[in-house]
């Protein structure tokens, strides 16, 4: 048993840290490195962030775990994770969908044409994707999606609506699941398509969220997709979507950001006075902080179980569900504890100069809401743990 990373891994971490330090000196760094952005800090939703991704690419950090025949480095997946952990800790965009689920699905199932078209663009950080799974009536029950794709000659014509597509307003391509067969069990009639985001039949409408980040609904009005932009085989989409977890088993689950937040809270409590005494000296606050500090360390352990399973080439379905469930609920409790500890002044937003911790916590209290809902709600995670982990009947 050893909870440390290996020497090679530690060396890599140090390299990434040095790279980040360098990058922080460049213009636009405030936008690229923004730990106050909560979960949406993983996005490359600005020109500065895309430029940073291109520099990541130049430095050889994209596609590390891809095979060399696809321009990758054939490294173990842990390096993608270590990179993301460092990026997440400083609030920089993560390496995500492109080198993750989309690139790897293309490698595993895509045609030569799609590989040749997309893989180099992904490696060079020239392309951003949006994922189109959720729909108004397909949330926790994703397989019930209704976006319809009809075969018309060699083409497919897509009609319907997607919901909660986070990156739709800045992405270049849409990785979208649609129903290609309505006469089979709902899992068996789904296919995946690649659609240019600027397709004239697509209408992207903003959904603003309580956490100040934008998401979108996307309407499909006779969106014609050439047959060779159907990914892999027809009606195998559900399989590809489920496999994606496998491909991203290392990268999705970082623990650095919540530790950064905790440390920031400790600093705020030391630096904020009430009744002539720093909040860090109030016994009730100390007691609550101690409990949550232990829970944070427990969350880290659950995260370690994910990457430990992943590195043994297992698909850490239950481990990931446990970490997702525990860490997102913890994130919400941390925000609530922080506001209570900082008292009424913590209601002030970032924009107010009087806001303690620059309004970090009132924002976190709003933004962490999405964490227990998106990406599989807490209830869905508990079902996964109960059925797959504990073998309980459904």
């Amino acid at each position, binding site marked *: 048993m050893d909870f440390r990373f290996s020497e090679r891994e530690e060396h890599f971490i140090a390299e990434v840290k040095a790279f980040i330090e360098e990058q922080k000196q460049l213009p636009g760094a405030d936008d690229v490195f923004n730990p106050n952005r909560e979960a949406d800090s993983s996005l490359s939703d600005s020109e500065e962030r895309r430029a940073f991704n291109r520099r990541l690419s130049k430095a050889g950090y994209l596609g590390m775990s891809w095979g060399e025949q696809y321009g990758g480095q054939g490294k173990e997946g842990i390096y993608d994770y270590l990179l993301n952990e460092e990026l997440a800790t400083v609030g920089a965009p993560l390496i995500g969908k492109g080198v993750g689920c989309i690139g790897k699905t293309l490698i595993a199932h895509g045609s030569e044409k799609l590989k040749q078209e997309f893989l180099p663009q992904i490696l060079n950080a020239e392309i951003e994707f949006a994922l189109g799974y959720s729909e108004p009536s397909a949330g926790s029950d994703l397989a019930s999606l209704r976006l319809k794709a009809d075969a018309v000659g060699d083409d497919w014509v897509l009609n319907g609506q997607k919901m909660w597509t986070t990156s739709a307003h800045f992405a270049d391509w849409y990785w979208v699941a649609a129903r290609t067969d309505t006469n089979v069990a709902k899992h068996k009639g789904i296919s995946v398509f690649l659609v240019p985001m600027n397709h004239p039949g697509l209408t992207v409408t903003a959904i603003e969220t*309580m956490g100040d980040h934008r998401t979108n609904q996307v309407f499909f009005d006779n969106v014609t997709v050439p047959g060779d932009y159907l990914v892999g085989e027809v009606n195998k989409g559900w399989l590809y979507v489920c496999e994606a977890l496998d491909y991203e088993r290392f990268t999705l689950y970082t623990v650095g950001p919540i530790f950064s937040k905790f440390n920031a809270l400790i600093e705020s409590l030391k630096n904020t006075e009430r009744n002539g005494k720093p909040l860090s000296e109030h016994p009730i606050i100390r007691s609550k902080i101690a409990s949550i500090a232990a829970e944070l360390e427990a969350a880290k352990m659950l995260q370690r179980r994910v990457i430990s399973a992943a590195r043994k080439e297992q698909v850490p379905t239950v481990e990931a569900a446990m970490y997702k469930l525990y860490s997102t609920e913890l994130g919400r409790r941390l925000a609530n504890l922080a506001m209570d500890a900082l008292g009424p002044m913590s*209601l002030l937003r970032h924009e107010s100069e009087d806001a303690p911790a620059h309004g970090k916590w009132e924002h976190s209290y709003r933004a962490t809401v999405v964490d227990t809902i998106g990406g599989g709600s807490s209830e869905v995670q508990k079902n996964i743990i109960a059925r797959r982990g504990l073998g309980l009947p459904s």
Partner: protein
Amino acid sequence: MDLDFSEEQIMLRESAARLCDDFHTSLSVRELEKSDTGFCREFWCESANLGLCGLSVSEAYGGAELGALETAVVHEEIGRTLTPSPHLDCCVISAALLSGAGSDAQKTQWLSAISSGDKIIIPAWQEAKAGNDLSHISTRLSKSDKRWVINGKKMLVPYANSADAFIVLARDEDQGTHLLLIPADNLILHRQANHADQNLFSVTLEEVDVSAENRLSSNENIAGCWDRAMLKGIIATAAQAVGGASRILIMANEYAKVRQQFGKPIGSFQSIAHYLADRATEIEGARYLTYQAAWACDAGEEWEQLALMAKLHATAVFRRSAVDSVQIHGGMGFSAEADPQLYYRRAKHLQLMHWDPDYLEHRVAQKVFG
């Protein structure tokens, strides 16, 4: 024992509900969050016309002279509809301060103006580094060149840009507590953007002159008067929390009946149903705890501890109800366009404003342990 409202109270609720509903759809609540004044002047005029502004003010000053229970009824509707208004600060707390410590002249001038809706008077008391007890209030009343002046900075003052005057909580060099009625002119206001997008300001007082007529001093125990006014205020806050919690839970409950996943309404899943059952239970407890505090205040029974408990518990329950309701709403829960987020933010606002849990627990414990 009778847990029912009187016919008059039911009528009052209906008229308050109608008024709040008329002016405050979730759309207009959103607009008011972004507006300059933070509340609707027309609504305010109508409130005054209906006698709501002077609800608790003595008849001698144009009020209806009704009790804390009637105030709770109105504030439950305010909370249900998320109605933003200076009613709590002006018509409950300031009215109680003026009634308790104002001179006849002050009452005639200001209480009447509160009842008629003509003037808005807001307590300015909170400070950045003081807790909720008075001992660390740093706003100072002091003598400078034979005149009395006041210096300090107040935080989180609601509707300050609509206020005609503030009742400023200050202390002198001997730690004596003072309530000073300071006209709003010439004070420095800074808008304070906040979580629930309520209308809040910092108010800076720099060498502001104070004369005898500014002082609320007809009561020797100013600190006690302040305390009782706040205690009345927190009963109203608790009632707002109960109204808000009930409403958001009803929304989540309705959503759980219609929203289908896996071929069934999500409310048929025990995970969702049991969240709702737990919260519904807590809400009923918080509701009657709040009514009991208000009733006790009116009936001359021991009420202070009940008021503290009601605010502590009802706002905690509202918060939990809002959290669960947002979760039940899924994506709609965090969308800005849907309504749950309005309640989610308001719940935390009510919990921390007007005495936060830390202070309320401190006070409750004081009484419990004697």
